[in-house]
């Protein structure tokens, strides 16, 4: 079981209210991603769930029981840290076995579980090495191994991939997703990378200044963002926002069009000059300075033949998101 419920959870450091009040339901077995810009309180929220920080007010329930004042070890959760937080003086085997030793398990049971975890994570040949002798990816696997041997109610991941290089990050992202599918245990994952959020999550929680802006499935957030913040945060490159007469034509204060929903066309309604053009092979990212509107980002096919200084015409070719003056989405 791994159902977690937050009821009006608040956290303040002196006069600074980092989490002004959060309500959230996480179902057993869900992969929930907390995403938001730096300093939005996502890591603090995770630490509150872990018990590494005390709540200022509110209740945290784990599997229906009030865990607000329980110490971290008694919450039945396991955490993977950004810095891996491995014990440098212990071998991989001892690192993974540490939580089992603390739980008072027999040596035989410890060995059995460590070997099972090592097999799942491909760590078999590294068990007698120390963390200092491992690469970043291997260290992260050890940290995950240390978390899974406890068979916790839920896993908490605090930006676990941010210290890895881009290629390794993609690989580890897939491994964590596969692990979730095989273990079917609740996972709460904190990241500022919305690609990680979109690819891994069953449910994304978008945070901004300690408040939950929107909770939903990745595509729900992508297709129906509740406000300008979510619309701008989810999706890469960022959604284009247009105000003024062009927005008023659609009965809105602001309209949003995703870069992939704009096409280059001879009969396009907007005309502009190409600023920056990046050709990645699979995609092209183009910035076009449209008179009367501003800079529009466009994502086109790899073979799109436009370059700096070209005068082109554009048209929205997908959903136009409409927002009111308060930044809330219009139905």
């Amino acid at each position, binding site marked *: 079981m791994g159902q977690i419920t937050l009821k009006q959870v608040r956290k303040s450091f002196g006069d600074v209210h980092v989490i002004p009040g959060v309500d959230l339901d996480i179902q057993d077995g869900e992969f929930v991603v907390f995403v938001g810009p730096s300093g939005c309180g996502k890591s603090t929220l995770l630490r509150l769930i872990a018990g590494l920080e005390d709540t200022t007010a509110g209740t945290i329930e784990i599997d229906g029981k009030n865990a607000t004042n329980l110490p971290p070890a008694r919450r039945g959760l396991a955490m993977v840290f950004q*810095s891996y937080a491995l*014990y440098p003086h212990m071998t991989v085997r001892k690192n993974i076995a540490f939580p089992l030793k603390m739980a008072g398990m027999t040596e035989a049971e410890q060995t059995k579980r460590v070997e099972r975890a090592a097999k799942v994570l491909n760590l078999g040949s590294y068990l007698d090495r120390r963390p200092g002798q491992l690469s970043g990816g291997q260290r992260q696997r050890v940290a995950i191994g240390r978390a899974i041997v406890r068979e916790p109610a839920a896993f908490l991941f605090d930006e676990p991939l941010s210290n890895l290089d881009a290629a390794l990050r993609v690989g580890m992202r897939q491994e964590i997703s596969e692990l979730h599918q095989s273990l079917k245990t609740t996972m709460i994952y904190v990241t500022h990378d919305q690609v990680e959020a979109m690819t891994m999550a069953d449910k994304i929680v978008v945070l901004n200044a300690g408040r939950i802006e929107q909770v939903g499935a990745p595509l729900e957030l992508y297709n129906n963002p509740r406000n300008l913040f979510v619309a701008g945060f989810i999706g890469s490159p960022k959604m284009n926002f247009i105000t003024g007469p062009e927005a008023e034509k659609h009965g809105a204060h602001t309209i949003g069009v995703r870069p992939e929903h704009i096409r280059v066309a001879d009969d396009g309604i907007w005309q502009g000059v190409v600023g920056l053009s990046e050709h990645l092979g699979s995609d092209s990212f183009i910035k076009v300075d449209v008179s009367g509107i501003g800079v529009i980002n466009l994502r086109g096919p790899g073979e799109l033949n436009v370059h700096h200084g070209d005068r082109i015409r554009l048209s929205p070719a997908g959903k136009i998101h409409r927002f009111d003056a308060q930044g809330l989405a219009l139905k």
Partner: protein
Amino acid sequence: MARAVTPQRQWIVTIAAWFVALLIFFPVLWMILTSFKTEASAVASPPQLFTADWTTENYTEVWARSDYPRFFWNSVVISVGSTLLGLAIAIPAAWSMAFVPGKRTKDLLMWMLSTKMMPAVGVLIPMYLLFQKIGLYDTKTGLILALMLMNLPIIVWMLYTYFKEIPGEILEAARMDGASLWNEVVYVLTPMAIPGIASTMLLNIILAWNEAFWTITLTTTKAAPLSAFIASFSAPQGLFYAKLSAASTMAILPILILGWFSQKQLVRGLTFGAVK
């Protein structure tokens, strides 16, 4: 851009370093050389660095006249004992200061350090009377307590600096892994801080070994360590420089050897945390 080091510059720096090193070491060298001179050549005027009539007689006489092994053993017990007791108190204290600091932790640390700036003679009379009243005068236990209290601020400060270098996330990971506070300190913090604890231990053994003010004041014969052994050679009949030097050499030799073998650890300890 890296600073260019010309051979000429390297020579100047090397010569300057040797000069400073010899200047610092000269009193010790003089003492060792004097310990092998006769009393007459030890007080010769003008002073002689080297003498023609080398002798080991001073050592034989010092050894015969006093119970060196007893003084040596007292020094070992007092310096090691006060350091171990100090560590037992300072490890939990430094842990709490480094990982769960309060609003006044910095002030407390500064206050502890400031006690080291107070002249020891300021508390001489109360300490002396107190030790006599409670039966700690001229006991090893008394000296262990006194030296531990004298050096505790330094031990806490050094350990605090080491502990601050240990990432808090590792201790949080231990907490998540189910470690109690005791297990966190025993299985995670202490093994990670072993280099720091070892440096602190070595430095404090040296400080306690070399401590003379309290060891001479608070002892007579039973608990007297090597510092009191040296002082016993300044007899009322006059100073016998050659014998005094032999006694001093015998007193500092063990700690000099310890310092020599542990210099790497000591230097690392003293510069730890200076550059992050």
